[in-house]
């Protein structure tokens, strides 16, 4: 399994539809390769996936774009549970809930308990911490990080770093890490050899996709300066409810789809809110975007959004 992206395929990702259930990552030769899950091909990736990424479950959302958000999360979970080889690790890249309410977190927790894809790791999205201090989020998920929200761990020789870029926003600003977290990150990475594959996960994109919609992280460049010496860096984000991918040197940036509802493509419409699609379309969009391993590179399915 010596599969790599080839640049043209990577670029093709940017044109892909949002939708889909989750993203799988397999480790091949130190390079992490995302494999989008399609409902028709849950088990076509060979080998045991390294981990699963789900994002933006938005439990509590109940508007037209998807009146049954718990339902689509359940479908996602069933899809993963039906896989022949399941990963030992799942990362949720935030916006677990829609309004940071205790009942929403409880529902999310209950649903995610059915996910048979190993240990669950999370970072908060801005929807999870609207109470300011993030009391509800940290009460449930703060343990891994001593209530800081950011933390790191190792799994199968890969170093994972979870970061928080959704708290203490500045007016007119983008997401941000802040000086304390950046200092922690610098020290955490300093102890690793450059050959260690690194996975960084945070809710908001760590590169600026659309400044006017807040789709970026203001001090991401500082974090990236610590990461550039590593041979393989995979940066996983959510927030924008669609797949956008970029490659810069050894760093691959990838945003995941939501399990709840799509958002418009950058700059289309009034703002980054829920996108209502025609009846029947949502399900179709959730299930048809796939990337499969074929020979020596990843092949994308030909289904795209318009």
């Amino acid at each position: 399994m010596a599969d790599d992206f080839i640049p043209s395929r990577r670029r093709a990702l940017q044109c892909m539809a949002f939708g889909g259930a989750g993203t799988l990552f397999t480790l091949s030769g130190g390079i992490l390769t995302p494999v989008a899950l399609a409902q028709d091909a849950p088990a076509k990736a060979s080998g045991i996936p390294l981990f699963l990424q789900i994002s933006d479950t938005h439990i509590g959302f109940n508007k037209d774009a998807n009146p049954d958000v718990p339902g689509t999360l359940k479908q996602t979970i069933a899809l993963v549970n039906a896989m022949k080889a399941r990963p030992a690790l799942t990362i949720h890249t935030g916006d677990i809930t829609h309004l940071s309410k205790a009942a929403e977190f409880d529902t999310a927790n209950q649903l995610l308990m059915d996910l048979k894809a190993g240990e669950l790791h999370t970072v908060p999205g801005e929807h999870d911490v609207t109470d300011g201090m993030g009391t509800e989020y940290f009460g449930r998920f703060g343990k891994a990080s001593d209530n800081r929200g950011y933390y790191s761990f190792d799994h199968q020789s890969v170093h994972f770093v979870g970061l928080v870029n959704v708290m203490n926003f500045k007016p007119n600003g983008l997401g941000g890490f802040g000086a304390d977290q950046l200092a922690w990150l610098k020290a955490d990475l300093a102890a690793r050899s450059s050959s260690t594959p690194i996975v960084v996960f945070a809710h908001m994109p760590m590169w600026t996709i659309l400044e006017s919609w807040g789709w970026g992280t203001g001090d991401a460049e500082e974090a990236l300066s610590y990461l550039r010496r590593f041979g393989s860096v995979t940066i996983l984000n959510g927030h924008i409810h669609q797949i956008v991918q970029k490659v810069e040197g050894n760093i691959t940036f990838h945003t995941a789809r939501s399990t709840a509802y799509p958002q418009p493509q950058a700059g289309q419409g009034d703002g980054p809110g829920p996108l209502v699609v025609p009846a029947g379309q949502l399900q179709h969009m959730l299930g048809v975007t796939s990337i499969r391993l074929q020979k020596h590179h990843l092949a994308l399915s030909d289904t795209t959004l318009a």
Partner: protein
Amino acid sequence: MHSLKHAFAYPVAMLLFIASASAADSSTIIIKKFMFNPMDVTVAAGTDVTWENQDGEPHTVVSLTNDFRSQALDEKDKFTHRFDKPGKYKYLCSIHPKMVGTITVVAK
């Protein structure tokens, strides 16, 4: 940047103040299309300012100086805060920090 002159740029707020001097004063800010409308409001001390979210996306009203903070406001949810002390109060939406506004409170 926001001189007292701005107070007269918002005659509606001032008229409300004059018209209902005996009742509790109030002012409403509509949140729509990812904007606070109006963005800058001037009110007399003691005014209840209410924000109403008309977007399908939730928003919050969060003071930059920790003077007030709403919960996440879903569509049609409202948040009211009474401004008693004259001063300039800047706020943002903590979900969409591009959304900012200012309440200027003048002495009654």
